[in-house]
């Protein structure tokens, strides 16, 4: 593990999981890998945070899971975003964009 990895900011894990799963259904390990890859190796999600978040979202009806065969013919639990989840993703995304824009404009204006 590289020492330069960043801590995942509070509240963004859910948003990133949504975004990743909105593109294609994935299993837990797939999500971890995709996140590391997309973040340019800056983020590494810990299973101790990932699985509780996945279960919470599934329980609340934002994600839906089904068991499918993997590439090497093993069974894994694949998560995908539901309609309710997409709505939540849109809302989150909009809010997050506003927050980052606001922070950026404060930084630039100073």
């Amino acid at each position, binding site marked *: 593990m590289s020492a330069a990895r960043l801590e995942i900011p509070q509240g963004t894990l859910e948003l990133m999981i949504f975004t990743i799963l909105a593109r294609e259904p994935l*299993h*837990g*390990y797939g999500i971890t*890998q995709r996140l590391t890859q997309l973040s340019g190796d800056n983020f590494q999600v*810990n*299973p*101790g945070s990932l*699985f*509780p*978040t996945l*279960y*919470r979202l599934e*329980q*609340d*009806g934002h994600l839906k899971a089904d068991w499918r065969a*993997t590439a*090497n013919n*093993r*069974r*894994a*639990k694949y998560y995908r975003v539901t309609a309710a989840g997409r709505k939540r993703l849109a809302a989150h995304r909009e809010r997050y964009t506003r927050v980052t824009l606001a922070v950026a404009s404060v930084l630039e204006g100073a």
Partner: protein
Amino acid sequence: MTLWHRMVSILTWIVRRNRAETRLDVELREYMVMAAAAKMRDGVPRDEAQRLARLELGGLESVKERVRGERHGHLIDEVARDARYALRMFARTPVGTAVVLLTLALGIGANTAVFTLLHGLLLRSLPVAQPSQLARIEIVLPATGQESGLEWGMYQQILRRQRSFSQVSAWVPGHYEAIRDQAGTLRRYNVSLVSGDGFPLLGIRPHLGRLLAPYDDVRGGPPHGWSAVLSYGFWRDRFAGDPAIIGQRLQVGKTPVTVVGVAPADFQGVTPGLNPSLYLPYQMHATLDGDSRDVDYGCDVLARLAPGANLTSANAELRIYQQGIFEQFLPTRVTQAPTFRGARLQASAARTGFTWATKDDRKSLLLMQGLVAVVLLLCCINVAGLMLSKMNTRQHEFAIRKAIGGGRVRLTRQCLLESLLMAVAGATLGAVAAWFGSAALLRFFVDPNQTETLSLHPDASTFFVTAGLAICTTILCGIVPAWHAGRSDPGALLTSRTKVAVRGQLAGRAFVPIQVALSLVLVSTAGLLSKDLLNFRGEHLGFDAAHVTTETPWFYHQLPQKDDEAFLEVYQQIVNRLEELPGVESAAITGNRPTEHGVAAPFQDGVPGSSSAMLMAYNHVGPGYFRTMQTTVLAGREFDQRDRDRSVCMVNASAATHLFPRGQAISQTVKSASGDPRLPTAPCRVIGVAEDARAANLREPAPPTVYFPITKEAIAVHGNFTFLIRSVHAEDAAAAYRTAAAEIVPTVPVLRFATVQQQIDELFGRERLIVMMTNFFGALALLLSAIGLYGLLSSNVTQRRGEIGVRLALGARPGTVLTMILREAAALFSVGLVLGVVSRYAAATFVQKLLYDTSVFDRATLVATIGLLTVVGLLAAFLPARRASRVDPMVVLRSQ
């Protein structure tokens, strides 16, 4: 997220948990396989890749625990699992669990039972509309500290003149009447008389029919005849809750009444604990008495404050006309007496009704509550001690649970849950015990003749108190062990066992001296109280209480014989018949029962011109009275069949010395110095002198007493006479009376038989109860501290096996080890004894108030208590100490 969705998800989780758990496990393992596979692809060897994958996951169980924490209702689930685990732990140590459970049940049960009494008799509001507006009006006598009810006339006056109350009513509780029910059985029931506005004032709704109204309460009776309202309990028990009771006729005494309604179930009269069976209009009393004297009863006056009025304004108003009322209704003999100085009419809050509990009752109840509270505290300390020593043996388990991911909160919660389960189970058992216990306790507080109609059972507020006690108990018992469990350090524990063990019992040690101290206080108080009561019971009373049975039938109202001579003849016939029957040694009649307060009157020497009158007790007794009571006749003879007039009398020894200080009393004369026509004003010749026999107040020496034969004047004094039946077995006396009564007076109900000894015991009921309770709780305290000490030492010995083994291996003799353990126990014990003696002296003034002629500093009791405690303590310490001395060094050293 709707509530519905949430509930479904909780339910699914509970129902399909096993499947979900398996899936979670599969998913996480799959994650590890994938992670390992990815690392192997990067060239990491297989074993190393698997180790790294496990590290990355950070502990399978710990991730699972966090996932479970996200579930809806995971708290319910965890608590349920903890509870199941706790139950398994309990089942594994059944004896220990039973001890804890019984201890808690005793503590909580005793508290609930006593509180039921306290609440029912002193605290409960009457179940009527706005009880806070109720006020009672009574005469307060500051000189004697007494309160008394009012005469009917006074009530009428107040009714006419007052402005502060919206309604004023009068109640006469505790009037006994024989009622013939539908089955034709004649029994006596408690009847309450109430003025017509009594029920309207309360504002309650009948269970059936209607309640009494002003038009029912008319002097001489309303045109449609007397009406009656049944209590709910009487209606349910005697009439099987038959709704057709309305309009039916009952016979009260000799008077028929019509049932017009049934009172609501929760209404038990205005005098807590008395619970009348029947409510009748006040004016019916003259009819019930069946005489023309037309004497008004005293009554309890209950009023409702008018809107805008308060007790202060009501009292100010009463003060204006109280003098007039006193002068109109009380004789000057009363109003001029020093005891009447400062007397006033007073209205006071009557939210709880007429609590008859006297100051003494109140004191005893509060004392009992204090006593049982101390016992509960003791129980809690004991249970906490037991739990703590159990925690010490479970240190290992906690350390392992913590090591594999059990959080501190979770462990603490587990321990608290265990104590809560115990407390709830204990409270349930205790509540069951209290249900029966409070009824038994109540018997000690009231006239035993009334218990039939009395009812007090735990109700909702008692339930809350019990629940509260259970929670307090949990906190008291569970908090220390729970804190310990949460603190257990896996690292230290898994490496070494002995180090932690020694630290763990410091808190447990502190319990022993406290237990010993509390036991000492309880046991020595029990000792003092018992000694006091025994002192008294051992004294010579001047009569034989154990073999005399009494019966006081109500001939005065219930015999058809109107003529006095014929009336007395019935008594004589029964006495004669009784003496013929098997088992009866002798029988006689008396005006005053042996334990009854007689009336006193002035008597003097019958010599003309003598003026030294003196207040004496007097009684009318039949032939054979002294023989039956086994009171020795010191000189002369006792009355026989010839003595049927007032020419003769007898005196007791102290009356003889007072009246005739110069010698011989026989053949001297005595006469009444009061103007009372019922007493002999002409001189009576003394024919016998009897030894002094104590009467009503058995704690004091017998008063000077004069005895007269039974004559028709005695009927006016006593009304009914009492049969005294002497027999070896009380059952013989009762059987003989039933036979005689069936032959001679078949229409009169037979009442309760009691030996004189039983009556004496009942007279001292409250004191006996307190002695019994302190003895019981003292013994319990002793047992609890023994268990506490034993438990502490034996877990201590178990933990120190290693150390003891080393000592023995290095040459210590078993005797030395035994002394070592005993010495440690003795140190704890001595601290407790010192604490106990100190707190006993601190409570001395309070305990002294309960004692009659035993000093609270009685040395013998203290020495005996300390001796007893020491013996019990030694026994409790000896068993673990002996076990320690028998440790086999080889076995211990190998196992280390």
